[in-house]
């Protein structure tokens, strides 16, 4: 299939892994959209939400990308497995005859037009903000997202962390994006490897890597998007959306992992 890939920054390792993995499975990544993040407004918002430390971490990831990951991180291991050598989506796109465009927002008219004209059968979402109806419709609803938590129970951000706090199974879910927050039809749900997790960071990175693998395996050898056969929409009440962890809840999660590192 032809794949359109989105990312919130050019050196995103998860996005690079998706591009590499999907290409290895015979798909053609025909277009990559990267959202321009380095704006003063975003920086100020990040400082107010995550502090200077949070801004520094995000900036490190933004500029250094995979160089900022440790050698034994699940994402680095996946990169070795997939023989990923590129450090930016732009460089990857150049080598793979793939269009690369920087956009102000995935919901901008420019991005929607690019999505329509890209010839993509499916968009794989690897970051770039909340999607609006226009972009989703431009792909006829075939926008695939790796969600780092079990759906429909754990919607929103920090999903794998919330899965542990809410005593839900530590699974990742591959699903289609719709107008709601993580309410789209599921394609697949996969458990995290059963073992000890020493820290929140290790848990999160394992979930991200599992999500990437999940998308690659789900799209796998599929040649027509209709073959993906999404499950029927969830019929029950919509669960309360999860948001970023307050410091007290991060500490609670860290303490829980320290006492009970083995999951599930």
């Amino acid at each position, binding site marked *: 299939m032809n794949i359109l890939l989105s990312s919130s920054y050019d050196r995103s390792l998860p996005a690079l892994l998706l591009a590499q993995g999907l290409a290895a499975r015979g798909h053609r990544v025909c277009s990559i959209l990267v959202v321009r993040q380095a704006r003063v407004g975003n920086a100020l918002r990040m400082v*107010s939400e995550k502090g200077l430390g949070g801004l520094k971490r995000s900036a490190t990831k933004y500029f250094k990308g995979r160089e900022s990951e440790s050698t034994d991180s699940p994402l680095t291991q996946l990169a070795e497995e997939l023989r990923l050598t590129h450090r930016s989506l732009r460089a990857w796109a150049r080598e793979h005859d793939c269009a690369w465009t920087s956009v102000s927002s995935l919901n901008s008219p420019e991005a929607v037009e690019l999505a329509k004209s890209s010839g993509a059968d499916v968009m794989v979402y690897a970051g770039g903000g909340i999607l609006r109806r226009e972009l989703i419709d431009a792909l006829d609803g075939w926008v695939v997202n790796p969600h780092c938590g079990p759906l429909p129970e754990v919607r929103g951000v920090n999903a794998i962390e919330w899965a542990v706090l*809410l005593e839900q199974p530590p699974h990742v879910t591959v699903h289609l994006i719709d107008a709601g927050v993580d309410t789209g039809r599921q394609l697949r749900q996969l458990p995290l490897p059963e073992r000890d997790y020493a820290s929140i960071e290790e848990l999160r990175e394992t979930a991200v890597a599992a999500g990437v693998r999940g998308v690659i395996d789900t799209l796998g050898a599929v040649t027509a998007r209709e073959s993906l056969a999404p499950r029927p929409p969830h019929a029950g009440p919509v669960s309360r*959306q999860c948001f970023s962890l307050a410091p007290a809840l991060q500490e609670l999660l860290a303490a829980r992992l320290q006492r009970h590192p083995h999951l599930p």
Partner: protein
Amino acid sequence: MQAGTSSQLASLARYREHIEQTAQWCLRSVQHGAGGSSAHFSLYQGWSRPYPETTGYLIPTLLRLERFLERPEHARTAEQLGQWLLSIQNADGSWNGGLHPGRDPKPSVFNTGQILKGMAALFEHTQAERYLEAGVRGALWLASRIGDDGLWPASDYRAAETPSYYTHVAWPMLEIWKLSQRDLIRERAERFLRVIAQRRRPNGVIAGWGFEEGKPAFTHTIAYTIRGFQESARLTGDHESYEGAVRPALERLYRKAELAGGRLPGHLDDSWKSDARYVCLTGNAQVAICLLLLEQRQPDLRLVNAAAKLCDFVCESQRLQFPLGGIRGAVAGSRPVWGRYMTARYPNWAAKYHCDALMQLHQRLVAAASTA
């Protein structure tokens, strides 16, 4: 506080520090309160005259502080305040509105209601009949003023009709009913609650929950309204009618609190929109309490998360090391301090609600950590 996992939560120590400093500020408000608790501190005018209404509902907070911090001076101060309130109660059982002494003293429904909380708490703490008797007299006065339409007369407030946040009067009436079993008090309180429950709109807003009709409501009075229903549900056991009335509003506030990172806009209109460029810090703390009360009945750490963010923002607004005692440990009306709610002042009720919210949050986190 349990040792082990809970000691790994650095936030617990942080919250405790804020509780201690805010409690100290409350004690200073009493030292400067000429018998009661000074309504507020301001840089321009210093400590104000005492405010019977908020002195009344500071009492339960002081009694909780005594248990939490294990410091008897808080309970002693609570009893002092109780004595003072008894000394200024009107013969008909009411208390006057405004600061004390008032320039034009008039019995006040809302203020009487808040003082009943202090009377109930002191009776439970000391078993001294004088507090229950004063509470019953006050509650009967309130009950006698409710009309056949289920509302209090128009003279008590700025709006043309009883504002919805007077559920915060029905609540203490029910506290007194619970202690005295005087059924008239319950009947009248519930008559009022049923009328207010009818004001709920499809989007969860309870019409008339602000100080003034047709204007956006401070989060302070929104939380008053919600809490009044929540506590009335607890006291009567009728969760469907009372807590059910405010569940949609609570879900909205949960999302708003999270989306704002704990900085709830200081006022909200009837479409839940806001043009506020300030946070009503009292309202932040009060909404945190409402979310934690909901969470007691529907355990969900997501609600605790939102409450923590609301509390963290108020904590960040405090100055714990400041030479001026009126500001050290105080909670401003608004952040920034020139915001519309209690501009440039540090109200005693902001400190009270902040203490309450932090103690409740602390308790919940300890419980969560102990089951980790």
